[in-house]
Every structure is written in structure tokens, then in C-alpha cells.
């Protein structure tokens, strides 16, 4: 392969991207060298195994990916704004919708979710870290390197263009030769292994690392949502790994799992990928449900209504989600009996979800509600998710689905549940736990601007798309002609939708501004309990010390911190004298990062079918695992005196 194929050429936007990548890289290198920050970067961040720092890195990466996916969305909306538009070439349009979907689900929603897992769960259950801190760092770096591998495809080698789930036979060599499709496979494969490891890590953390007095049925609901999402990860991510491996075997070794000839079966891929893909959307929404449960209870100053039914419904969702995958292709022709089973299972999911919404509303009933930023996002979530869920039930009706299938009605539906459910939930969680991790609140006024623009932008963008779906506009349509545009009325609706997309783009600017502004001017949180919270994470300073809890807390039932605070307010309350003990902590290690670099080499090599390079990368991965196995000196002790000094400095004594 010569260089003229290696670098993507011929598109002014790509040249612009090339230039900006080079400039940003140079700026970062200059900054780090000039301020002598390389050692700091290595010691404090790259080699860290601290769940709080890993959470922050996940968050940062997901916000960057939100930006990239958002730019893709705006480019698509510009292309569709008017009929017969040639703003983007058609191949470029295909690449952009593929990239947008892949990035938003796998490289934005997943890391944002893992950011919340890492930032909150150990603090909420009274633990000093996750069960496997080094594995946690491995998960992060695998995600990061996978995302980078996927993202460089648009300047090197060319992007994937077969849709975000890359159905064969289109994604096979015959129709998608070249490295683009391989970038998609390896980017997701590498980060998917990281996700699987995170699932295992958090299951063990939640089952085994809770402070000894916290019983499972008194655990905060966010941690329950993480447990149920992790169980779902455990059940379906291996299927993704296997399916991508099969597609790799087809493309790299000339296999016939999913080809049109030699007995391959493309529909098998579609079944496999949705066996992962459908539970995947529940995986991302369950933690959002957990966030709402925390927020509603805190800001209504009430215990959550129907705790057990909340737990039961989350577990029900994660189990039933395994039996809904075929609703993505009712039109496959599996027959009425098969379709009915999947249609009914899909509709059944609406029941536990409905239970949860009612529980939140009953929690608010007669509560003393404070309307804060996190609460605003919850308010927005309820109607948005309700409509999104209702259109989902419409789509789940198999006979009717033949009409909606792959139309803009579907596009509007899943954006409504994913934005209304997942994005709103994660943003609510971000605003809620931001002071815990960073020690200051995000500015209210800028946040409200962003919030209202999000709401208006969202409805302006997606409501017209429901109508467009009914009018016959199909997804992935590159452009439409004058007759469709003006006589059939597609153009005005598309134009309005584009305006909405821009409004949402402006929100992102407001939110970035909000973060930068608040670093300097945000309200400082000196108490560690920024919102008058109910769960254990609010009982420690913000930001928490490296060991989180100087003394493992005692949990007395649900909302333990809330009741402890009331006890502390009573007359005659005496603080018990504390004696500190040495704390056992894991040491930082460079192995996760080095292993991820080898994964990158492997992924890059196999992408260009340079098998020698791919094999070198895999040997490197095995070598780092081997080296780690020989490391025995992996943890250290923080002495009791150090703990005491730290606590004193934080004003806790």
C-alpha cells in the first residue's frame, strides 16, 4: 500500500482535520514540555489505578467524543436541510452516519456511563477502590485506544461506511474492501474487551467490596443500577466479541460466516449483533435510571418510593432485554409466531419502566422539592422518555413495524429514548456528582441556558422526523429530489430539524463554557455534602482523599448518611473518638497503558492486513500480561499518621 492510499486525500474538510490534528498535537506537546508536565502526566494520570481519576479520564474522553459525534450530526443535518443538496459527497455522507452512530453509542455513552460507575460506586458503597484497580485501568486504556483507532480512520485509510452495526454482506470484503471496515471492527473489539472487564470488575466490587455493614437490599439505587447493567454487560458483550471475531475471520482469512457464497449466512450476523445490540441500549439506560433515583430522593428530601420494586424492575429489565433482539428485523420473515414472541417481550419491558417512572413521581409527591440543575434534567426526562417509550411500543407492534421499519420514525424514536433517557440522565448525574469529584458546583445560569436550549433544540430537531417517517423518508437517505422536497413536503420539515440540531450544538458550547467558567468561579463545596445528600459519598470531603474513607463507614439501613446527619444534629450528640489504622492501597502501574499501546499496534496492523504487525502487537499484549504475573510488589500501605494528617488538613478532625 502506497502513501497516496494510506492518507485520505482529496477532501478539503479532511485536510482541515489533518491540519487541526497536527496543530492540537503540537500544542499539547509544547504545553507539556514547556511546563515540564510529562512526569506529572505519567505519574498522576497515565499510570493511575485510582477509580476517581479513571472516572475523570473517562468523562473527559466521552465529552470529546460527544463533540466529534455532534459535529457529525450537524454535517448530516446540513446535508439534508434542503433538497438535492451536494454539500457532502454521498460516500462521505455514508461514512459520517456510520461514525456518528458508532461514536455516540460506543465511544460517548459507554465511557460516560463508566465515568459515572467509577466516580460514584466505590464512594457510595463505602469502598476504598474497585475490586481490581489495575484491571480498571486496563479497561480505560483499552477503551481509549479503541476510540483513537476508530477516530484516526477518517484521516488515515478511510472511514467505515456500512452503518453503525455494519451488516454483511455490505461489510464483507466483496463490497467494503480496504481498511475502513477493519478500523470499525478493531476499534470496537478492543474497547469492547475493556467494557467486558469493567462489567466483571463492578459486579465483584458491588458484591464483595461494600462496607461490611451495608446489606445488598439497603444499597443505594444507583449502585443497584450499576449491578444490573454489569450483569447485562456480562451476558451480551461476549457475543459482540465473538461476532466481531467472525467478521474478522471472514475479512482477514477469507472465511464464510456471513458471505453470500460458499454457504455463509448474513442474517446470522444480524441476529448476533442485535443479541448484543439491544441489551446494549438497556445497559446504557439502566445507570441513567439509577441516577434519577438518587436525584429525585435527594431533591424531594424523601426516601425513594418503592425501593424494592425499583430493584426488581431493574433486574427484570436486564433479564427481559435478552429476549427482544429480533424486533430490529421483524421484516426478516421469521414468521408471525416468532415475531409475536419478540413483540410481546418488547412491550413487556414498558411495564417495569413504567413502574419506575411512577415511583419517581410518588417520591416527589408531598416532598419538599428543590429545583436544581440535576432536577431540571429529571423533569425533562419524564415527558421525553414517556413519548419515546410510547413510540417504542408502536414500533414493537410487529405488523405495524412493516410500515415504520427503517424510516425516520424509527430515527426519531431511538434518539428520543437515547437522548431523553440516557443523555439527560448522564448529564443529570454529571451535575449531581460534579462537586463530589471536583470540589465545586457548575454554574447555574449557564447551565440553565444550556438546559433550555437542549430542550427546545431536541424537540425542534426530532419531532419533524416522526412526521417525515410517516411521509416515507427512510434512514440513511443521502438526499432527496425537488419533488419530494417541495411537493411532498419533506423540505420544510427537514429544514426545521436542522435548526434544532444547531440549537443542540449551541448547548454543547454553553456546557463547555460552563465547565471552564466554573473552574474559577463555581460555588465551592467545603462541606463535602453539596446537596444535603442521603448516601455515603456525601459523608466524605470533596474531592475525596485517595483512600476515600479514613475509616470504613457503618451503614445503618438505607439513606444512611441522611439519618446519621439527623443523629448528629440532636442535643448531646458526641463524636466518637477515632483511631486511624494503616490503609492498604494498590500501587500505580504503567502496564495497562503499555498493554493498550500493543493492542493499538495489533489493531492497526490487522486493519491494514499487515499481519506481521498485528501478530507483534498480540505478542506484546501477551508479554505485558506475562510481565504483570511476575510482579509481586503491587501495593503499599498508607500509615495511620499519614491518614491522620490528611484528615486534619481536610478539616475532618
Amino acid at each position: 500500500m502506497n502513501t497516496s492510499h494510506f492518507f485520505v486525500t482529496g477532501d478539503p474538510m479532511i485536510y482541515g482535520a489533518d491540519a487541526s490534528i497536527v496543530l492540537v498535537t503540537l500544542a499539547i506537546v509544547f504545553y507539556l514540555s514547556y511546563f515540564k508536565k510529562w512526569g506529572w502526566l505519567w505519574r498522576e494520570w497515565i499510570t493511575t489505578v485510582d477509580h476517581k481519576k479513571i472516572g475523570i479520564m473517562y468523562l473527559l474522553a466521552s465529552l470529546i467524543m460527544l463533540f466529534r459525534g455532534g459535529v457529525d450530526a450537524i454535517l448530516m443535518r446540513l446535508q439534508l436541510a434542503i433538497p438535492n443538496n451536494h454539500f457532502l459527497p454521498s460516500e462521505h455522507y455514508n461514512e459520517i452516519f456510520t461514525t456518528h452512530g458508532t461514536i455516540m453509542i460506543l465511544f460517548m455513552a459507554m465511557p460516560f456511563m463508566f465515568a459515572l460507575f467509577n466516580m460514584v460506586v466505590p464512594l457510595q458503597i463505602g469502598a476504598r477502590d474497585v475490586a481490581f484497580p489495575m484491571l480498571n485501568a486496563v479497561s480505560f486504556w483499552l477503551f481509549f485506544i479503541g476510540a483513537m483507532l476508530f477516530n484516526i480512520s477518517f484521516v488515515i485509510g478511510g472511514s467505515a461506511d456500512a452503518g453503525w452495526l455494519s451488516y454483511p454482506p455490505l461489510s464483507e470484503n466483496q463490497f467494503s474492501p480496504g481498511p475502513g471496515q477493519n478500523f470499525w471492527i478493531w476499534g470496537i473489539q478492543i474497547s469492547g474487551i475493556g467494557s467486558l472487564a469493567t462489567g466483571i470488575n463492578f459486579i465483584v466490587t458491588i458484591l464483595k467490596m461494600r462496607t461490611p455493614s451495608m446489606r445488598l437490599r439497603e444499597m443505594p439505587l444507583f449502585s443497584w443500577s450499576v449491578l444490573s447493567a454489569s450483569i447485562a454487560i456480562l451476558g451480551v458483550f461476549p457475543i459482540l466479541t465473538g461476532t466481531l471475531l467472525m467478521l474478522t475471520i471472514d475479512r482477514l482469512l477469507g472465511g464464510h460466516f456471513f458471505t453470500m457464497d460458499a454457504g455463509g449466512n448474513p442474517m446470522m450476523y444480524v441476529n448476533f449483533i442485535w443479541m448484543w445490540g439491544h441489551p446494549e441500549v438497556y445497559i446504557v439506560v439502566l445507570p441513567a435510571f439509577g441516577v434519577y433515583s438518587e436525584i429525585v430522593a435527594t431533591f424531594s428530601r424523601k426516601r425513594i418510593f418503592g425501593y424494592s420494586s425499583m430493584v426488581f424492575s431493574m433486574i427484570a429489565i436486564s433479564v427481559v432485554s435478552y429476549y427482544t433482539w429480533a424486533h430490529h428485523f421483524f421484516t426478516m420473515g421469521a414468521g408471525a409466531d416468532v415475531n409475536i414472541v419478540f413483540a410481546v417481550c418488547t412491550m413487556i419491558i414498558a411495564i417495569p419502566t413504567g413502574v419506575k417512572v411512577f415511583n419517581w413521581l410518588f417520591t416527589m409527591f408531598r416532598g419538599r422539592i428543590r429545583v436544581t440543575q440535576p432536577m431540571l434534567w429529571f423533569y425533562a426526562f419524564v415527558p421525553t422518555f414517556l413519548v419515546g417509550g410510547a413510540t417504542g411500543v408502536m414500533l414493537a407492534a410487529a405488523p405495524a413495524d412493516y410500515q415504520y421499519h427503517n424510516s425516520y420514525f424509527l430515527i426519531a424514536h431511538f434518539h428520543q429514548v437515547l437522548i431523553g433517557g440516557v443523555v439527560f440522565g448522564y448529564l443529570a448525574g454529571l451535575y449531581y456528582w460534579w462537586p463530589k469529584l471536583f470540589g465545586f458546583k457548575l454554574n447555574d445560569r449557564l447551565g440553565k441556558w444550556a438546559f433550555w436550549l437542549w430542550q427546545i433544540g431536541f424537540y425542534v430537531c426530532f419531532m419533524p422526523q416522526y412526521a417525515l417517517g410517516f411521509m416515507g423518508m427512510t434512514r440513511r437517505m443521502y438526499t432527496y429530489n425537488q419533488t419530494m422536497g417541495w411537493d411532498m413536503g419533506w423540505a420544510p420539515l427537514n429544514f426545521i430539524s436542522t435548526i434544532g440540531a444547531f440549537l443542540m450544538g449551541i448547548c454543547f458550547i454553553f456546557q463547555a463554557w460552563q465547565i471552564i467558567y466554573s473552574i474559577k468561579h463555581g460555588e465551592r463545596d467545603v462541606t463535602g455534602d453539596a446537596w444535603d445528600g442521603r448516601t455515603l459519598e456525601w459523608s466524605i470531603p470533596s474531592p475525596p482523599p485517595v483512600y476515600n474513607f479514613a475509616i470504613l463507614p457503618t451503614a445503618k439501613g438505607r439513606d444512611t448518611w441522611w439519618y446519621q446527619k439527623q443523629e448528629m444534629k440532636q442535643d448531646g450528640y458526641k463524636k466518637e473518638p477515632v483511631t486511624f489504622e494503616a490503609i492498604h492501597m494498590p500501587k500505580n502501574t504503567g502496564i495497562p497503558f503499555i498493554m493498550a499501546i500493543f493492542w493499538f499496534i495489533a489493531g492497526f496492523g490487522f486493519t491494514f492486513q499487515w499481519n506481521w504487525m498485528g501478530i507483534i502487537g498480540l505478542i506484546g499484549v501477551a508479554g505485558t500480561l506475562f510481565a504483570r504475573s511476575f510482579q509481586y510488589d503491587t501495593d503499599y500501605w498508607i500509615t495511620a499518621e499519614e491518614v491522620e494528617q490528611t484528615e486534619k488538613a481536610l478539616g475532618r478532625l
Partner: protein
Amino acid sequence: MQQSVSAKFSDHDHHDHGHVDQGGLKVLGFWIFLVTDCLLFATFFAAFAVLRTHTNGGFTGKEFDVPGFVIETFILLISSFTSGLAVLALNRGNKKALIGWLIVTVLLGATFVGLEIHEFSSMAAEGATITKSAFLTSFFSLVGLHGLHVTFGIFWMTGLILQLFKKGITSVTKRKISIISLYWHFLDAVWIFIFTVVYLMGVM
């Protein structure tokens, strides 16, 4: 038996002052990992089940080399038995016997992989390669995936043998041996399914 072994080890790693039992966590984590690995194999089994009749007019399951796969099976089963003997030696605290049985297990595993490579290459020599039919693609992928797992296990076990030479039997090496023996038995269990679904149902 494995469960009781792992439960026993967790006591050794236990620290006081409310500290979490790291060894026990790792064993539990590994059990959960095995669930995911099991599902990975299940995906390949499912693909094989769909594609096993899609032979494209070429090599079929009837042509498998019966003595070949029977010998492979026995060797792997024996290696599972010897890894069990290694764990028994570990429980007795007999380092020499432990290392000896682990070396036997590694050698048997290597023989298994060698026989599998021989089987694959003789099939390829007859023209039955991965590119010929969907049946062969799914066959080579499923059996090859298992073979790669065994190969990985061989390197892993070799690393642990070196550590045993250096460190002897400690609570850490005990936990590591109990984990790899879980892995090894798991691969054996997967092979039983491959033996049944792929080979026996193939030649029937």
C-alpha cells in the same frame, strides 16, 4: 472440588482491620470471567450449529479422522486429571510434586495442540481450508479458538511454574495455581462439547 479449594485459600489471604480479602475477590472474578468465556464459545457453537450442513459440496463432518480426535480427547482429559493431581499436591504443600504435575500437564497440553495443528494441516493438505465452505470456516474457528485458549494456558502455566521455583508455595502462588486449574478444567469441559457436537455428531 475447585470451589472448596478456592474457599480454603481465601482464608490465607485474609487481613485484619476490615480489609477486603483480595485473593477471594480474584477467584470470584475469575469465575465470572469464565462465564463470559463460556458465552464466547456459545456464540461460536451457535454459528457452527447453523452452518454445519453448509458444506458447499466439499469436506463434510463424515470425513473427520476418528482415531485422531479420539486421541486428542484422551490427552486433554488426562491433562485435566494431572492438573487436578497438581492441586492435590498443592494442598499437601508438596512443592516438588506440584511442579512435576504441572510440567506433565503442560507437556500434555502441548501434545494436544501439536496434534490439533497436525489435524488442521492434513485437512488443509486435502484442500479442506477455512475458505472452502461456511462449515469449514465455523469448524476451524470454533476448534481453533479452543486451541488458542489451550496455547495461552500453556504459556501461563509455564510462567507460574517459574514463579513456583522462585517463590515456592505462598498464599499468592496458591491462589494463582487454583485459578489456572479452574481455567484448565474449563477448557476441558468446552472440549467435551466440541467432541460431542462437532466430531461425534459430524461422523454420525
